[in-house]
């Protein structure tokens, strides 16, 4: 699905990211962990062509992300609030996305139905713009938008942050179901090691822009390795 080759991102003389090779397979749930400044968000932004690479390249299904745009039609992401149109109400936002992605009205309805447990009655039908929602609810809007239109790749940056424990569990369920039914590939970064080991079958540990470990073992082994690293 994603192939990363000799990817480097420098900010001035400082190296923010340096990955020689990384392949993310289709329908993998790829977890990304690491302390602050490890380069998680930078990697996401490079994959999405939001920032320029200093050298190397990222390809999605063989397309160089900086050269073409077609990959954008099956890739969804939610990194931060810059990806929303905060002056719309959530309903208007989903309707706008429906048009941009060229979906039917029924598709959108089914989609929102799927997210109604996560929304918990606080997102739709309220007379509020996205900018006036609470942080957690804004996140839910962004996450739900990242699942719209059967994407084959979804990138989520810190999806559990700001969510209440119930919502965190519901989100985990949605991610797992989506993988099982549609074979969707997920890239998820998180500081919550329990959640990441729960849902991901592969976890990469970043440190200062380098891949320190690439774990594909059983959940228990991965959890121990991670605990080991973060307990220093």
């Amino acid at each position: 699905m994603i192939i990363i080759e000799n990817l480097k991102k420098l900010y001035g003389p400082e190296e923010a990211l340096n990955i020689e090779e990384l392949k993310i397979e289709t329908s993998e749930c790829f977890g990304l962990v690491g302390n602050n400044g490890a380069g998680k968000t930078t990697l996401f932004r490079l994959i999405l062509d939001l920032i320029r690479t200093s050298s190397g390249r990222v390809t999605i299904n063989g397309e160089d992300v900086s050269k073409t745009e077609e990959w954008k039609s099956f890739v969804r992401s939610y990194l931060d609030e810059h990806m929303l149109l905060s002056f719309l109400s959530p309903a208007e936002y989903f309707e706008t996305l429906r048009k941009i992605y060229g979906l039917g009205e029924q598709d959108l309805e089914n989609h929102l139905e799927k997210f109604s447990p996560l929304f918990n009655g606080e997102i739709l039908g309220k007379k509020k713009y996205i900018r006036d929602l609470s942080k957690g609810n804004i996140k839910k809007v962004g996450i739900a938008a990242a699942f719209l239109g059967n994407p084959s790749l979804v990138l989520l940056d810190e999806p559990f942050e700001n969510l209440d424990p119930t919502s965190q569990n519901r989100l985990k369920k949605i991610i797992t179901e989506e993988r099982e039914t549609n074979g969707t590939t997920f890239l998820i970064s998180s500081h919550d090691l329990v959640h990441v080991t729960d849902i991901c079958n592969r976890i990469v540990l970043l440190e200062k822009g380098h891949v320190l470990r690439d774990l594909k073992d059983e959940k228990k082994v991965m959890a121990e390795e991670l605990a080991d690293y973060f307990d220093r």
Partner: protein
Amino acid sequence: MAPEFTRLFLLEKVRSLSFGRDLVSGILVSVFVVFIFFYLIGFAVFLGLILKNLFEVEDVPAFLNQAAIFYLLAEFLIRFVLQKKPLFDLSRFLHLPVEKSGIINYLLAKSLFSPFSLLVIILFVPVTISDVSPVYGPIYSSLWLATLFFLSIASHYLVLWLKEVINGRFIGTLILFAIITIPFVLLYFNVVNIGDYTAQFFGLSASAPVPLVVSMLFCAFSFKLIHRRYLGSAYLDRMDKNVAFVSGFGKNLFSRFGAAGTYADIELKLILRHKKSRGFLVLALLFLLYGLFMYRMGAGDSLMESSGIYLFVGIFIVSIFLINYGQFFLSWNAPSFDFYMVKNHGIEELIRGKILVLSTVSIFLYLLAMPYVYLGWQILIFHTVALLYNIGIGTHVITGLAMWEPKPMDINKQAMFNYEGIGFAQFLMGIPFFVLPYVIYVPINYLFDPYAALAAVGIFGITGIIYQDKIISYNVRRLKGKRHKVSSTFRQST
């Protein structure tokens, strides 16, 4: 705290991501202001002579006493339209042990450092020395001048206060403008001269310091007024209570235009839901009245004689929104630029959608300005040529310029201390926009006649419309080339 605030303010300016662009426009504005000041000083030095010889005024101080109220009203209007609200992001200090009242004092004191504060000094010091002083004596003439000065400062704070109260509402602005223009209209039609009544007040300066005391009290009062207003709204939650939730308005206005239409619909909501952009719409409607001042009733040929000026009026009426809104072209989308970045052809459709909205508003203004045809059918020609130029060429001039180092703007932050007002700098971008049609108009008008010249400008516009797709594609390619730079600028700032 004042020196520290000033230091922070300067640091913010220097480290701003659009420092280059701000610096260039700042220098250009300063040059312009200095130029105007020299012009005004020249005028002011000869004001006494001009009044005596050209207008045959015998008693200059008495005349000035009558004219003072009109000067102050005019200054008030100019301040209201051109002067920015003081800019300060209070949220960074609210949690610190800094007195709110102190911050606001600083803010209000800083706002006085504006060219407008010098206006009354420049205009009246020479005439006070040459004509008022000989009559009133040096001391009382100083009191007279100080009275004017304090009234000018009072109007400065009053403008800030009224801007808060009116809060960009169309009706409020209209009422204020109407009230202020009434004395001028009454004078023009010889009904009553308000100046006759106020002259007694200013004339008192000749013998007593009463006017000075009154004007100082008024100044203190208006300072207190705005100080209380600012203090009362020094909170993080938005003051903008009058923005009701509007759902669905203009929902599918552009849906017939395909993908670009979807983005145009987003843009329309953006315009209607943010105070600043709505303000520009209101301003565009107000400027529809511009024609009333400029167009004279006249049979065809007399209108054509000054067709050069009327073409300008037409372009101005049709394009005011384009200039105001278009100068921030991408900045409006700064908070959600990544939204467009991750959509298939998102940037391209964003630009097409925005241009669709801009052109639609221009056509809308053109239609609203239709009634001017009663003043002469030639006005239809001016407006039509103006519209063709606007859509075919002007839009691309403004948006092309605006894409140079786009300035991030957080439109969601609506706390009033963060308001970026309608300033003077924006008119700079209008210079090439207004000059370009005359590059064609002037030579052809000289060689042939106004009709041919207007036709040529119209054809210029039509050519642009025909090649619109190519021009937009060029601009899209340009933007895509620097998409990373633009998006990272937008991301860092908000």
